């Protein structure tokens, strides 16, 4: 499969008063054309910042991509000019955010907000853009499109707003859609509907998708390929079937174990003991070692590299390194 997005050794740091935070730490992966790649991991492990780095939207005066390449269609997004990047944003790559309620401008009508990228990137005139807007609103499954177009964000529910966000994101027919926890803020029935909408659109348009989530149910349903992140690093990646059937990294196993299974009522749901480490206090080690069930001595002092391990899966864990066993 041809790569659409190829990220090499991406590192994004925040410089805070307490010290540097390596939010994304030497991350490499690829997304093929038409492929859906899911990024999973607990809160704070750098998923959103990875997405923001791709969009060139790392915020704040102190956040910066310090190293790496983001090759999109062969072009390095970190090297091209601001203007060129702006023309790619919303056009070739678009993003849906976690919080639909606050992601739309409260004083501009829904219709105008959808029309904006159409008029800017596709150079449609007002009338064409409006017609397309109505189509898009219908496409994401909202009835009475005209009425919706002339309403303001506060008049719509969270699920509807997230569909509007999807409509904006797909309006220019992007090659890559980044969805950063698109359903986390919604209630369960709406979650399923929104995901279904996303999947249908994806099937029709053959775009690639980078889906960020911490819901493994969503992963199982949507993903072709899964990337597991922990404390800013990729600890394991692989095809969705292999990864679910043979999780290698203890963290991945823990995540899968903590996923509730229907028909299997346990006294208490499993959860990985301990907490994500403070990003300010990380030292050379496997960042997961203090929560790991199968921790080796080497895990305390050296960081494992991400290595191929059969079936196209890659894992960064000393358990799968021969040399580690003898140390």
């Amino acid at each position, binding site marked *: 499969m041809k790569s659409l997005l190829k990220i090499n050794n991406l590192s994004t740091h925040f410089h805070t008063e307490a010290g540097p935070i390596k939010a994304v730490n030497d991350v490499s992966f690829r997304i093929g054309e038409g492929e859906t790649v899911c990024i999973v991991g607990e809160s704070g492990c750098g998923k959103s910042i990875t997405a923001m780095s791709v969009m060139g939207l790392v*915020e704040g005066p102190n956040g910066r991509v310090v190293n790496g390449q983001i090759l999109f269609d062969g072009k390095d997004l970190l090297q091209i000019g601001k203007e060129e990047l*702006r023309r790619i*944003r919303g056009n070739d790559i678009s993003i849906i955010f976690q919080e639909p309620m606050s992601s739309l401008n409260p004083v*501009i009508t829904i219709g105008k907000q959808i029309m904006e990228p159409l008029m*800017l990137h596709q150079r449609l005139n007002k009338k064409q853009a409006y017609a397309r807007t109505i189509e898009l609103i219908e496409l994401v499954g909202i009835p009475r499109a005209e009425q919706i177009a002339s309403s303001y964000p*506060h008049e719509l529910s969270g699920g509807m707003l997230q569909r509007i966000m999807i409509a904006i994101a797909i309006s220019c027919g992007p090659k890559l859609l980044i969805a950063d926890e698109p359903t986390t803020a919604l209630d369960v029935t709406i979650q399923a509907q929104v995901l279904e909408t996303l999947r249908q659109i994806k099937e029709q348009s053959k775009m690639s998708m980078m889906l960020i989530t911490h819901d493994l149910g969503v992963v199982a349903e949507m993903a072709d390929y899964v990337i597991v992140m922990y404390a800013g690093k990729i600890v394991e990646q692989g095809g969705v079937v292999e990864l679910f059937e043979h999780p290698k990294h203890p963290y991945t196993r823990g995540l899968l174990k903590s996923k509730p299974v229907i028909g299997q009522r346990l006294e208490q749901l499993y959860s990985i003991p301990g907490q994500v480490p403070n990003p300010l206090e990380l030292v050379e080690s496997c960042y997961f070692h203090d929560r790991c069930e199968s921790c080796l001595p080497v895990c305390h002092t050296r960081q494992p590299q991400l290595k191929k391990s059969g079936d196209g899966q890659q894992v960064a864990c000393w358990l799968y390194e021969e040399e580690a066993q003898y140390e």
Partner: protein
Amino acid sequence: MRTYLLRRCLYMIMILLGASMLIFFLYSLTPGDYVDNNMNLSEQRKAELREIHGLDRPIIERYINWMANIFKGDFGYSLAQQRSVIDLFQDYIWNSFLLAVVATFFTWFFAVVIGVLTAYKQYSLFDTLVMIGIFAAMSIPSFFIGLFLIKVFAVDLKLLPPGGMITTGSRAVGWEYIKDVLHHMLLPVAVMVMLGVGSLTRYFRSNMLDVIKQDYVRTARAKGLKERSVLFRHALKNAMLPAITLVGFELPGLFGGSIIIEKIFNWPGIGQLYMQSFTVRDYPLLMGFTMFIAILTVIGTLISDILYHTSDPRVRL
């Protein structure tokens, strides 16, 4: 909306009634009036004048008369100037209005643009310099800036006239007249803008700083909009909302004149007239003017409210 407006108007009338009582009784309780003040009049003449102008009547009756006349659009008769107050207003208010409207426009324009840019480039050199400039301008008294500018531009450089509204003795009409007035306006307007722009800029800057952190600004960027649209369409619209209410409050200021500025630049505005009337205890004019400002204030507040309700879709009635 309809019932809301009706209720508002009712409140307005009550407030104005209260204000009128306050104004009238305070002025009439102050000892002395124009007639007393005039040394040249004989006691008999004074009594005559009092009778003509109804000053000898009981205070309640005078109040009712005064109010009835105001409802008819008659604010009284200035004894000092021997003209009706309304006529005097007509003569002076538009001069004040001219200064104020131009100054207000530029104040807002600069405040918005500078506020947006400093917020966008927070802590940059530009931002720091602007902030220093603003504090400097805000802490220097207006008479000092005014006199200083007159010294530099009128006395030393002889570029601009030191005061007045038209060149003394000028009979210019049409375009020449407009040019002459513009020439004379430059300094007072500059001083008024300098004095007003600081606090408003800071206001817009802090509003903008809040707004540009919002998620929808990030969305606007993610859509690939130009930075200009992100700032001036998406962010500014939201940052302007709280400021919309200020627009109405500017109304009395537009017609109220500025005592100090008009004095320094010898501008024939209502502020100067007001000062003169004070020294001769021309109470009808003073009361009329105060009432006029009270009416404008109440109307301004109503305008603010209406603007607030129509500009923010979330608070539609």
